[in-house]
């Protein structure tokens, strides 16, 4: 098996390297790849869309159709993890710890639950003592991370950024909450139903903005025809791009958290990392 793999890999590598024989050198500004279509993008983007960031303009405007399906790909991954792993069975046993004395209670009947708060705290099967410094530091950091994420989404047109990047940062702030406290804290604050609705709504915002262009007289995704709805003059394409980026950001944020929760707790949503 290893010999077969080695032969296949060497043949493929040789084929790929043979193909690079006629490539232009690295960094050549006159290679065919840098001439035909990409010159048009660099020279005409600011006139047509008023967005200084060429990459965002190409991603959400010129090739926005690809990005819509890319958002659908990440939506499928989250939905697939949910479909595959989600286990709706109720948990039977619970462990609680009395904070002042350190006594551990094992409740075997699932129906009687003790309210957690100042006296009792909920314990996972692999519980470790939570560090006060750890918890406090993360608690202070999380809002700033979220503001930064919103900044990244809003500035997608003007500086490096965009919907995907901002959505991932926002999602990681929520995952930080789950890691520094425990999974129950995250699940109680943000219900599964809210996450599911946010994920679908994000992608629907993208497809909705794209579809509204059709009754206004344009093709699918033609933001230029949205001018009657958005009073922005020549900046209407940039506003369409911003709306689409917001949709992507919401969807990616929800999906990141859904994938994390489902994998880490193997679908049960009760305990994890």
């Amino acid at each position, binding site marked *: 098996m*290893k010999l077969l793999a080695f032969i296949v*890999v060497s043949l493929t*590598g040789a084929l*790929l390297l043979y193909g690079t024989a006629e490539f232009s050198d690295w960094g050549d500004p006159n290679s065919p790849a840098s001439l035909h279509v*990409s010159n048009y993008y660099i020279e005409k983007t*600011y006139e047509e869309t008023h967005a200084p960031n060429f*990459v965002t303009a190409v991603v959400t405007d010129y090739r926005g159709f690809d990005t819509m399906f890319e958002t659908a790909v990440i939506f499928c991954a989250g939905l697939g993890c949910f479909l595959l792993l989600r286990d709706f069975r109720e948990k039977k046993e619970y462990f609680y710890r009395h904070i002042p004395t350190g006594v551990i209670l094992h409740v075997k009947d699932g129906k009687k639950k003790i309210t957690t708060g100042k006296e009792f705290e909920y314990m996972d099967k692999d519980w470790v003592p939570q560090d006060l410094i750890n918890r406090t530091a993360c608690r202070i950091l999380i809002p700033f991370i979220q503001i930064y994420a919103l900044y990244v989404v809003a500035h997608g047109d003007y500086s490096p950024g965009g919907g995907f990047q901002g959505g991932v940062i926002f999602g990681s702030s929520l995952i930080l909450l789950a890691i520094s406290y425990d999974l129950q804290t995250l699940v109680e604050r943000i219900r599964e139903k809210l996450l599911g609705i946010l994920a679908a709504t994000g992608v629907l915002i993208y497809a909705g903005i794209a579809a509204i262009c059709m009754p206004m007289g344009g093709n699918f995704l033609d933001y230029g025809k949205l001018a009657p709805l958005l009073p922005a003059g020549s900046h209407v394409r940039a506003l369409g791009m911003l709306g689409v980026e917001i949709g992507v950001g919401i969807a990616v944020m929800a999906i990141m958290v859904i994938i994390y929760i489902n994998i880490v707790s193997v679908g049960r949503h009760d305990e994890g990392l």
Partner: protein
Amino acid sequence: MSDLLSLIIAKYNYWLYVILMMIGLYAMIAKNNLIKKIVGMNIFQTAIILFYVSIGYKTNATIPIIKSADTGHGMVVRAADYINPLTSCLMLTAIVVSVATFGFAMALTVRIYRRYQTLEEDELRMRLSE
């Protein structure tokens, strides 16, 4: 021979990324542990992304965001000053696809482990044929 050497030096980035791709492909095919295969898949896809991004580079060019001096009336944007934005845009999509596949493969591995308590491919094959 010196011809080949000068060829490699002029295009060393492509050679590097192809070697990285082959390392990932070898791990995907030859390794026995499922997690190692998934890591190999990640290396393979990342090497493809790097290959594409390196196609778009131009010497002495800056990132593809308009310098503030160029905006306004009577501006001229020269294409040789900015690197190619199209390749980065294509790779945004490829990165998201690779993350989605990786997440889903992890979910499958977790479920296989919960059922069979092992992650070695030959043990799994033996268990399934019983």
